């Protein structure tokens, strides 16, 4: 991507991201009072992550089969409360092994 276009996107992206973190950190000293607003903010991160992950995750690898198996491994490890590193690593290993087997069987 040409540098000028990239920089315009980067400035908007980083500018919004910076302000959204720093302005409240500098200004706010008191906690939020409204229960509904607190509840909404409590849900937002998980809803965002879920919407970003599915269905995009199924096209993140060379084959939907390996992606589905990697997703399954990640969900199981997540249910077992494994760390971010463990879940990310083992889901990658699951994809690698699946694709290795598929390749061997001529399915990839």
């Amino acid at each position, binding site marked *: *991507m040409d*540098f000028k276009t*990239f920089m315009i*996107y*980067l400035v*908007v*992206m980083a500018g*919004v*991201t*910076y302000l*959204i*973190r*720093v302005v*409240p*950190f*500098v200004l706010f*000293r008191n*906690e*939020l009072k409204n*229960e*509904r607003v*607190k*509840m*909404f903010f*409590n*849900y*937002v*991160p*998980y*809803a*965002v*992550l*879920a*919407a*970003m*992950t*599915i*269905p995009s995750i199924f096209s*993140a*690898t*060379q084959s939907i089969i*390996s992606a589905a198996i*990697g*997703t399954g491994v990640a969900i199981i490890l*997540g249910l077992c*409360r*494994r*760390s*971010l590193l*463990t*879940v*990310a*690593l*083992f*889901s*990658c290993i699951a*994809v*690698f092994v699946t*694709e*290795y087997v598929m390749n061997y069987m001529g399915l990839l």
Partner: protein
Amino acid sequence: MGNVRRNTALMQLMYGIKDGIPIALGYLSVSFSFGIIAVEGGLTWYQATMISVFNTTSAGQVAGLSIMLLHGPLIEMAVTQFVINLRYSLMAISLSQNVNKGVKPIYRFLFGAMITDEVFAVAVSKAYKVGRGYLLGLQGTAFLGWSLGTFLGAILGGVLPASVTSALGLAIYGMFIAIFVPRSRDDRRVAIVVVVAIILSCIFKYVPYVNRISSGFAVIISAVLAALFGTFLLPGNENKEAA
């Protein structure tokens, strides 16, 4: 007296670094995959690295990258970053209650920029109010892991065999799953919100006509509708500890 204070600050820095190392290691593998995705999409290695240096936010960067690569409108970029990163505002407010007086407004302009989900979780869980040294160690270590990982992924992505880059493409999503799945297990309402968000995002991907909407907006709309659903249609006050 001067010595004691210096030692304390140094120890605080060391504590921060120690707490930051596991976060940095987790980030390293995930941002490595971000670096690969960014370069595969058409960015140079230094553009990929700059995104991580100036943003340091996994979900926001993934969404922002796709808008950038598709040459989407700037307003979409701004709105997407705003909604996806809105949670940081809440974390920033919460974290501001748990920092000591040494973290003056001038420092907040620096430390505020590096509030991530994991940094926030660790820093607010401390029984004492954290200071500048601790935040510098914690955030600095996490920042290095995130930036270095992106740089390495961007450079090595082309060198690694396709089987490895394909597998690493799942890392960032694996990390997302590791955040929302355990939370869904703890709180059934979060689980319902997560399922609603997934159904909506699948509708935006696969249903004709509706799927013309760009991926960035699809994520925002799915997430906001799902969170509103949870806020207004599910019973409240089951868990007060939620941030």
